[in-house]
């Protein structure tokens, strides 16, 4: 009993249990990436290269000297200070090298010209807001170092390869054995002998003295920043034999943002991108922009994705993914509609709400109110089910909103109306 009493005392000292409000406020930020942009249901903050490198530097990992430039003049200035530079587009997607987003500049005028070309260009749907000018490296060898969450193993995986660079995915595909892997114990992190073994397995024994401490430093991004993916590719071995991070990718877990304010505050607002996604983020919505003309709102990520699939099957194309979560509260619906209607490509909106305990009549009244507040004139089809769904549908009909009996019927209707 003494043991029990001690446990109780500890519990009393712990913070009070949260209310539903805090719980649902947190739920709003989750699920962001469930639309599957990168097949991850965990919402992640993706840092730009220069931001990731600042974090690496704070972990004592060597990075080349570099400067952020928002104008050609700033790029020229950076080159004047650093000598020959690589001018690199800063976007939160991969493949920028192949898209022409990286140029080498020997002189300040070269750097200005490169920046003029790169700033504002579109790389896989992202307008480039700024470039990072980085001192050119004397590259003797390119390695690969990274960690991520292996969903199947339900664990973090550390990976090291002697064959770094642009074609690492091909390497993984064709000679998987050339990538050494380690699943560190999540409570204590990787031990020295494990890292030693990893380095030798990767065939990099000659660099073991430098690599083991460097991998340990990178791993600190997990406990210190709740990183879910970090990647140094290439990890450059210079002509002098030093290890330097040639590129850097870092994603942190937004579910951990309540305990990880530092990076969020420093970089959270800086990530520039799709204007609707930026606006949705401000409104705490789970939203991903797509290319089509049918705006989509659904409750639950699976249902929402299923709705996108049905719209496509009916011959239309979705303009977005937007999951409003459980409850379908009127103000959340209004927020979601506001963001969707900002997009001039949208020709109609489909709302698919499957309420478990949610009352259909309340949802319907909220929808009517949201539409009226926003003076929405585009076609709107609503599929509503749950408690009091009949009353809900009657309210919609009275107010000129087309109800759909099933998700599939609703998808066909909205596609017809937006053709």
């Amino acid at each position, binding site marked *: 009993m003494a043991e029990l009493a001690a446990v109780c005392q500890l519990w009393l000292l712990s913070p009070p249990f949260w209310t539903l409000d805090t719980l649902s406020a947190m739920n709003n930020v989750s699920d962001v990436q469930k639309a599957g942009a*990168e097949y991850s249901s965990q919402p992640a903050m993706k840092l730009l290269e220069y931001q990731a490198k600042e974090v690496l530097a704070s972990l004592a990992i060597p990075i080349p000297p570099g400067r952020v430039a928002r104008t050609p003049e700033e790029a020229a200035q950076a080159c004047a200070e650093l000598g020959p530079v690589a001018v690199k587009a800063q976007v939160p997607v991969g493949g920028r090298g192949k898209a022409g987003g990286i140029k080498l500049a020997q002189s300040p005028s070269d750097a200005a010209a490169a920046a003029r070309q790169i700033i504002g260009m579109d790389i896989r749907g992202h307008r480039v807001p700024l470039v990072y000018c980085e001192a050119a490296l004397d590259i003797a060898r390119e390695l690969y170092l990274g960690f991520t969450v292996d969903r199947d193993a339900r664990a973090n995986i550390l*990976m090291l390869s002697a064959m770094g660079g642009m074609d690492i995915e091909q390497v993984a595909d064709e000679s998987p054995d050339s*990538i050494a892997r380690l699943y560190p114990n999540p409570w204590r992190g990787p031990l020295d002998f494990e890292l030693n073994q990893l380095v030798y397995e990767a065939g990099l024994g000659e660099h073991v003295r430098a690599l083991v401490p460097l991998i340990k430093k990178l791993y600190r991004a997990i406990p210190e920043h709740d990183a879910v993916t970090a990647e140094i590719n290439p990890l450059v071995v210079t002509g002098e034999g030093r290890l330097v991070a040639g590129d850097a990718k870092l994603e942190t877990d937004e579910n951990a943002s309540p305990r990880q304010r530092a990076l969020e505050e420093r970089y959270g607002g800086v990530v520039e991108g799709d204007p609707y996604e930026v606006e949705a983020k401000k409104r705490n919505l789970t939203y991903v922009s797509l290319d089509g003309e049918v705006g989509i709102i659904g409750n639950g990520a699976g249902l929402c994705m299923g709705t996108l699939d049905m719209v496509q099957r009916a011959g239309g194309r979705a303009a977005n993914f937007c999951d409003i979560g459980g409850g379908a509260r009127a103000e959340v619906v209004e927020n979601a509609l506001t963001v969707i209607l900002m997009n001039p490509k949208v020709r109609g909106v489909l709302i698919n709400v499957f309420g478990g305990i949610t009352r259909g009549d309340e949802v319907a009244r909220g929808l009517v109110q949201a539409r009226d507040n926003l003076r929405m004139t585009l076609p709107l089809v609503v599929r509503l089910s749950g408690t009091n769904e009949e009353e809900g549908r009657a309210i919609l009909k009275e107010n000129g909103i087309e109800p759909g009996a099933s998700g599939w019927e609703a998808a066909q209707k909205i596609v017809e109306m937006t053709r």
Partner: protein
Amino acid sequence: MATLLTAETPVIVQGITGREGSFHAEQMQLMGTRLVGGVSPGKGGTTFLAAPVFNSAKEAVCQTGATASGIFVPPAFAADAIMEAAAAGITLIVCITEGIPIQDMIKVKDFLKAYPEAKLVGPNCPGVLTPGAGKIGIIPQRFSSPGPVGIVSRSGTLTYETMAALTAAGLGQSTIVGIGGDPVLGLSFSDVIGLFEQDPATTHLAVIGEIGGSDEERAAELLGRGSRLKTVAFISGRTAPEGKRMGHAGAIVSGNRGTAKSKEEAFRSAGVAVAETTAEIVELLTKS
């Protein structure tokens, strides 16, 4: 399904006095779930819904003999609550909480290796429901009816939709298991399919997956090795865009698996019918 939850299973709710926990504990009780107690640190000694409230899971298990728990605590404390339940001897842990940091769940999965008898469902899941017996979680029972179809799903609302469509078509369900949408989960599709295989009350199975990870592919492999269940699979996210990926680490780990196409192909090559809509799940299950 007797292996997870029956009408006799003694259940506690962790976070029973919170707004989510109290609401759903009552719903669970209304459905006939044997709610024997709750945990709410600092509220021990009180009662809620005529069930005793304890300060810790260990105390609740000692006093009530509970073997199952539903966790409704906020994300910052949920990982600890899961480990607390396992350490207290709970063998069915259903964690409803959404938004648990992924590194917390990775630690939980490591911790649970010491408790091989503890089955974790979720987190970020709707829970487990056995029509006519009880439920742990938030699945709305009014869409369910007893029958032979097992459902295992990663999505909440699609599960409800499928249950409702099956019930409307006169096809009842044996047990519904929402395994959750997070990348790091407790029971996998394969684990739950294994349980359904052993359950004589289940003859049909609906597998509702979505893009990401390769749990679906593994389940397809398992079903392809031979199954007595008539199974239909559905994958949501077929039209989700590719190409917003940043680094290579994810691709190195998962290769080409994870897409809707890869999952559907895996099921088809295992001889499992693939539905394109939830309505089609019912059609394919009833087709002889």
